[in-house]
């Protein structure tokens, strides 16, 4: 076996997403990491390309009743219901916390109506955040959310409305619960999106057969974790072939090899979600593993890998 002579400093792991430079392609997925505060005990946030915050709305949301989660085979379902403290608390507490680190800040925004989204995006315009990720795909709230994510015309409209007021580049986060993900990606591209992220969770259900009841109080929840990775990789591949936007790929990433699957089918960034619950150090292990892969295979620039499998 040939061993490449590359060392750490020969490598370029940096990527650009909608004009924003990330030190490496690795971030965590919204909702699985809070705003990084709790995880900072385990992870040096400076090592992450970006921190993506839990979805935040213009006002506080109480979320769904418990139980909110259930473990499933190789994954989990969650129906947190986008509990969040509202933008005011978020801007006073979470953004200043994140500004201490050398990482980019991506704020995930949720809403029930177009007005909610616009209100939140306008308020965030004043804030030192780098990118906005608009969650139009949350399956766990009754109003809004998912409808925007399943009807192309609605997705285009909400994208355009958000873009009109947004001061930061806009990433639209797509739902996998659709017949044709490429069509959804083209819709948000038409609406003016600067990037897309996918996938959000697959709608799932678990039954507690002993208690003869739903395992999560909301009946349905979003399925995530390594179980869904093949669906996510397929969708990223489809979207990479359908639009001209940078893609943040996610869905079941647990290690560098998993992340590289997404990168090789066309993702510029990758996000680790559920795996953080199994091992809080997953994100940095992914960064290290990608670096090792590049050294082992003589790959100097991560761009040689992005979309290399066609």
């Amino acid at each position, binding site marked *: 076996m040939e061993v490449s002579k590359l060392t750490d400093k020969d490598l370029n792991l940096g990527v650009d997403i909608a004009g924003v430079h990330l030190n490496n392609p690795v971030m965590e997925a919204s*909702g*699985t*990491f*809070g705003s990084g*505060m*709790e*995880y900072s*005990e*385990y992870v040096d946030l400076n090592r992450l390309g970006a921190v993506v915050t*839990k979805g935040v709305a213009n006002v*506080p*949301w*109480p*979320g769904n009743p*418990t*139980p*909110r*989660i*259930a*473990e499933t*085979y*190789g*994954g*989990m379902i*969650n129906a*947190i219901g986008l*509990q969040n*403290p*509202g933008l005011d*608390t978020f801007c006073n507490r979470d953004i200043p916390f994140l500004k201490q680190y050398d990482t980019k800040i991506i704020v995930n925004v949720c809403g029930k109506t177009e007005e909610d989204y616009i209100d939140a995006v306008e308020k965030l315009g004043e804030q030192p955040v780098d990118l906005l990720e608009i969650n139009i795909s949350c399956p766990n709230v009754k109003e809004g959310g998912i409808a925007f994510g399943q009807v192309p015309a609605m997705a285009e409209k909400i994208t355009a409305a958000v873009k009109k007021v947004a001061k930061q580049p806009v990433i639209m986060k797509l739902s996998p619960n659709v017949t044709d993900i490429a069509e959804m990606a083209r819709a948000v591209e038409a609406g003016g999106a600067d990037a897309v992220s996918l996938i959000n969770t697959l709608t799932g259900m678990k039954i507690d057969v002993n208690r003869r009841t739903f395992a999560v109080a909301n009946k349905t929840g979003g399925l995530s*974790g*390594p179980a869904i990775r093949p669906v996510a990789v397929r969708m990223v591949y489809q979207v990479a072939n359908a639009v001209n936007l940078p893609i943040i790929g996610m869905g079941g990433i647990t290690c560098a090899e998993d992340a590289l699957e997404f990168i090789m089918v066309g993702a510029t960034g990758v996000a680790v979600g*559920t*795996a*953080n*619950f*199994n*091992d*809080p*150090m997953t994100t940095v292990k992914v960064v290290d593993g990608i670096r090792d892969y590049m050294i082992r295979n003589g790959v100097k620039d991560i761009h040689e890998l992005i979309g290399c499998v066609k």
Partner: protein
Amino acid sequence: MSYRENVEITRTACLADGVYEMWLKTEKMAKEAKPGQFISVYSNDGSRLLPRPISICRIDGNKLRIVYRVAGKGTEEFSKMEAGQRLDIQGPLGNGYELEKILSDVAGKTGKKVDRAVLFGGGIGVPPMLELAKQLHDAKTCDVEAVLGYRDNQLFLKSEFDEFGHVTVATEDGSIGTKGNVLDAVKTCKITGDVIFACGPTPMLRAIKAYAEENSIEAYISLEEKMACGIGACLACVCKTTHKDEHSQVNNARVCKEGPVFNAKEVEI
């Protein structure tokens, strides 16, 4: 501070039907642990990703002891493990009992020093009370009155409580002690105290909350909820609180972070 460690199991035993104990040799975790805290225990089987939260039953130097009931696939896996095998764990997690602070708080509120603490443990809620009993006993500031509820005559850990205070037992089948639950035992045996600490099934905690309110006793109860992160990030494990808390802004405290120990007055169960 909490840690992620891959630890060696140093001892295992079956304490009663379906109830097992495990001693774990930690690097740093045991040193920082408090009674009432828990650890996240991870499966070695990749199909089970989420941690199993298990309370700390005893702290002994760098060792932690946990006692658990086989409730499903994860705890079944643990029950088959043997000394020498290894497990990933994370902790110590949750607030646990800040004993000095609690005792002085209670004294402040009631205008009376705590002379006797009543510890309620129901079923698999018995083990988390043991380290608390020990620390209260060792601190020598108050008497320990433990009221332990079991299903039947398999009184796991009971004899260890005897070392730290006076113990009253209730059994569901009446085979030993008072027939019924821990509150039945309180009535039958006329047990009183200045503060309550309790862990057990929700109906028991609900009854104790009501009992404590009726009798104007401060009560601290340990709640359970399904967890994903175990460290306060995912908002899976919330419970309803009477006051809007700083973190959530929506009366939702995180059992894994603000809890699992709550002042009974402050939560709706």
